[in-house]
């Protein structure tokens, strides 16, 4: 088992969540979890293909960050993008239909699992190559600053969140973008989902300094380390970073210590991670933990949580049905979308 870092402590009690807010977060995490479980099922039943990377275990990050953002803010993801898309508001129907390769998918069946896009929901993608989404996210952030400061649009205070993994932080684009973001004080959150592994490469074997949040310091940028299994801790860090970004005070690097409960993709035999490591992290399941918190704090009762789970269950079933019933893309449109349409 790879050595574990001590998760930073967070006083959940200080989080001040309302019951309504708590349920919103809970629902989003359940949505993410159930959606992914259904993907696994559908993949094994031959309904979806290619590389499918599930998000199980990391829900607190997507929910914690994206649910702290506004709907006109931007989200930029990787190949592990289903749940970021859902948190960003892309309907489960469109994400599922995309996975089924249907015309009703958010990328019209052209993209697939690793290429979820939604202009309507300011989801910039779905990037299958490591790191390549970070510059794109930077561009969205630059755009907001440009509108505000070059075009004088005071309302242009949108923030962008770029999500990526620990392995990606050894790639040049990560550093190049930290520099430019800090240099130009761009409204962006670099959210590292450090799940300790990049496919079969343990983080410690890939980097000379495993504490990623510290790298921010040499770019003059705040870097924070967060318990990525605690949705409230993530949310608190995100809120702070978002208000700083919105106020024109620049970027933040947030390192969320988390874990994926499944293999890298549904094709990964997942033989290198130890049972002990998996169990340690499984015990920190962000959903179970938040459930306990909601109950303890009397923000919800078992009944309410159950009804959320049932509703999401139904929603996912409906998404599968929607995807199955949806038409495939029209072969005559093979060349559509190569260029802009007049």
């Amino acid at each position, binding site marked *: 088992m790879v050595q574990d870092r001590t998760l930073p402590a967070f006083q959940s009690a200080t989080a001040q969540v309302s019951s309504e807010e708590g349920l919103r977060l809970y629902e989003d995490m359940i949505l993410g979890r159930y959606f992914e479980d259904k993907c696994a099922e559908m993949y094994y039943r031959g309904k979806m293909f290619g590389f499918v990377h599930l998000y199980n275990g990391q829900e607190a990050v997507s929910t914690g960050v994206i649910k702290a953002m506004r709907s006109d803010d*931007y989200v*930029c993801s990787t190949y592990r993008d289903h749940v970021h898309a859902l948190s960003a508001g892309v309907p489960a129907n469109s994400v599922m239909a995309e996975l089924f390769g249907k015309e009703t*998918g*958010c*990328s*019209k*069946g*052209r*993209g697939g699992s690793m*290429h979820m*896009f*939604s*202009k309507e929901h300011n989801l*910039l*993608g*779905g*990037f299958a*190559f490591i790191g*390549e989404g*970070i*510059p*794109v*996210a*930077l*561009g*969205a*952030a*630059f*755009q*907001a*600053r*440009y509108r505000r*400061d*070059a*075009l004088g649009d005071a309302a242009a205070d949108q923030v962008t969140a770029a999500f990526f993994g620990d392995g990606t932080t050894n790639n*040049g*684009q990560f550093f*190049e*973008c930290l*520099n*430019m973001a800090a*240099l130009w004080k761009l409204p962006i959150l670099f959210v590292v989902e450090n799940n300790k592994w990049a496919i079969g490469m343990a983080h410690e074997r890939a980097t000379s300094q495993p504490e990623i949040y510290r790298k921010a310091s040499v770019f003059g940028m705040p870097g924070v380390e967060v318990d990525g299994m605690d949705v409230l801790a993530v949310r608190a860090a995100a809120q702070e970073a978002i208000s700083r970004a919105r106020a024109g005070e620049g970027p933040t690097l947030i390192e969320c210590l988390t874990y994926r409960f499944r293999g890298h993709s549904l094709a990964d035999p997942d033989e290198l991670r130890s049972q002990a490591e998996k169990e340690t992290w499984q015990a920190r399941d962000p959903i179970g933990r938040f459930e306990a918190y909601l109950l303890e704090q009397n923000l919800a009762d078992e009944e309410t949580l159950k009804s959320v789970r049932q509703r999401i269950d139904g929603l996912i079933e409906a998404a599968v049905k929607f995807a199955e019933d949806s038409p495939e893309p029209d072969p005559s449109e093979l060349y*559509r*979308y*190569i*260029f*802009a*349409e007049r």
Partner: protein
Amino acid sequence: MAETLLFNALRQAIDEEMSRDGTVYVLGEDVGQYGGSYKVTKGLYEKYGELRVLDTPIAENSFTGMAVGSAMTGLKPIVEGMNMGFLLLAFNQIANNAGMLRYTSGGNFEIPMVIRGPGGVGRQLGAEHSQRLEAYFQAVPGLKIVACSTPYNAKGLLKSAIRDRNPVLFFEHVLLYNLKEDLPEDEYLLPLNQAEVVRRGEDVTILTYSRMRHHVMQAVKSLEKKGFDPEVIDLISLKPIDYDTLGESIRKTHRVIIVEECMKTGGIAAEIIASINDRFFDELDAPVLRLSSQDIPTPYNGRLESLTIVQPKQIEAAVEQMVALRV
């Protein structure tokens, strides 16, 4: 308008488009305070400020990706490659994101951006600064590729490229920046997808682009004196190729010579020959001839360098042989 140098024609194009549309901005190395390595953006930093003429760190892949992200969200970036060769570092962003993202996103996003700068073989700049990336990028789907060759077309094409809602790779030539030409007083735009018939003729169709147009025209001067009558077409758009204009010419001359500055293997001429073969095989009286650069990195030594690229004399000889000998 008085005689305008090519680099100033480009600057005018950018300036006009920037003042017309607030979302147009320039980014790249030394485009701002320095005014651009070849002075294409000179004065624009002072006029439009540091966000609209953005000096970037030396991080080609990331600032190109940043341009893509800003284009996806409504801006119209013009990326200057200080030398287009440096964009080898940005190949991933150009191919995957500028080129393919619109399609892969199922039409969610448009990427209205221009990537421009000097390419080609200069005067003993050495291998790395003498690249002809049009050949490397031509297979990338979703990109338009344009090469300008005169102050007039440089200005009109660049303006159209900036207004185009797709990613356009726009090649200038390091040795053409100081060409001079009278430009129209009034605003004008030139279509990105139309080849330019530089000279009408009957004997043979010469297809070329960028600096080689001028080598061709030099050869044509001598050829005219000897009584030859070649048709010269500047391709302008290297992707897609304007086969309407080419076809019209080929149906008239039945002979084609392509003069390109990129290397022969996998070059622009290769694709054109293959397409001519697809479309106009029966029109040809002789195999299409390609005159290309040698398949080597450009050597520094001047004599070797001039042997590497096509010279006017070779073009002359090729036309003479093809036309006079009726091969």
